[in-house]
């Protein structure tokens, strides 16, 4: 089957009815007839575990590494593995047991699509974003830093539209730097914090904040270079190639040139929004 997400067509191939069912459920509404940018071939099959000698990144959920000149993405508990070709045109996915089915339904596609977005110079940033009266605010930070909290406070007290509360897509166009809702990364748990009409859409970005809880609200301007480092650190990368990191670099050079960046210590109540709207210089 061919699917289209974010204007990118991908061919999903499998002979296994179980995998087919997962894909039908996840992407049944996104069928496309375009020429695929990438082919994913998946099946249930045992596989030899990589040697773990050349691990590039290891997270709680997966490991990205290099083996015999090919990059792989190994899912937790070694239940599935994806092998990428050098041109990023074909991905072979082997699933060892039923735990790996989630891998094919979510993780692989998520990583691959982010790789394709990166080729279009679109970044996926671990951040929340809100729009308040045509002003866009982006909040960047790790899990637990308060991204959802600050977005929820904005929706409650500042009449904000929440673009996304965990992963924002960032891109540059003729109008400047924009943030977009991320359809690829569906919210994995329900968000009772937000009404459905509060989530989604896009906005230009007028200020970027790197979050830190504090005793009082305080935004301290951040210089270009540390801001770029932080933006890269909180971006999701797929294969971590020179090209991929270079594309991020180029985008974030524009971000820090055009948009004021701050370290924000904040108190998680409505005062933070009063503070931001009164005290912070925007683009």
């Amino acid at each position: 089957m061919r699917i289209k997400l974010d204007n990118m067509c991908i061919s999903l191939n499998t002979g296994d009815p179980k995998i087919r069912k997962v894909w039908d459920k996840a992407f049944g509404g996104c069928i496309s007839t375009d020429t695929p940018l990438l082919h994913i071939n998946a099946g249930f099959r045992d596989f030899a575990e990589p040697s773990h000698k050349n691990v590039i990144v290891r997270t709680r959920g997966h490991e990205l590494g290099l083996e015999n000149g090919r990059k792989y993405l190994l899912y937790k508990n070694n239940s599935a593995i994806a092998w990428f070709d050098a041109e990023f045109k074909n991905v072979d996915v082997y699933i060892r047991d039923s735990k790996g089915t989630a891998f094919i339904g979510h993780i692989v596609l998520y990583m691959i699509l982010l790789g394709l977005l990166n080729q279009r110079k679109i970044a996926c940033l671990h951040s929340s974003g809100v729009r308040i009266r045509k002003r866009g605010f982006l909040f960047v930070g790790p899990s637990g830093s308060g991204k959802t909290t600050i977005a929820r406070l904005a929706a409650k007290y500042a009449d904000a539209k929440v673009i996304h509360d965990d992963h924002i897509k960032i891109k540059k166009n003729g109008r400047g730097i924009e943030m977009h809702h991320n359809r690829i990364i569906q919210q994995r748990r329900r968000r009772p914090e937000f009404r459905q009409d509060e989530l989604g859409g896009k906005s230009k970005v007028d200020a970027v904040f790197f979050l830190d809880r504090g005793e009082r609200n305080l935004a301290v301007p951040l210089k270009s270079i540390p801001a770029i480092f932080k933006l890269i650190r909180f971006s999701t990368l797929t294969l971590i190639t020179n090209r991929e990191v270079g594309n991020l670099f180029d985008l974030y050079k524009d971000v820090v040139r055009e948009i004021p960046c701050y370290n924000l210590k904040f108190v998680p109540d409505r005062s933070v929004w009063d503070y931001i709207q009164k005290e912070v210089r925007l683009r």
Partner: protein
Amino acid sequence: MNLANRRFCKNPDHISRVVDNQAIIVLTKATLSTTEKFFVLNDTGSRVWDLLDGRGGIGHIVRTICKEFDIAEKKAEEDTLEFFEELLKNGLISVSDN
């Protein structure tokens, strides 16, 4: 290690860009979950990085730095060698016999 007669090559797994007249270097194969693999070079360091093309030894770099930054040759050579040791230590360059 005597570096004076060696040839230097940049680590191929890096990306560098110039921001605010400073070269920023990221080692792409290193994990991006820490800031330890991000490097910022000052203007002299950035120029040396520019001059590192893998073909010449340290001599032509020192001569260029002397001329462009108006530094005595001995001082330039000492500083450049010290800088190269730092680059080597951080995996930004590799060294081979000339």
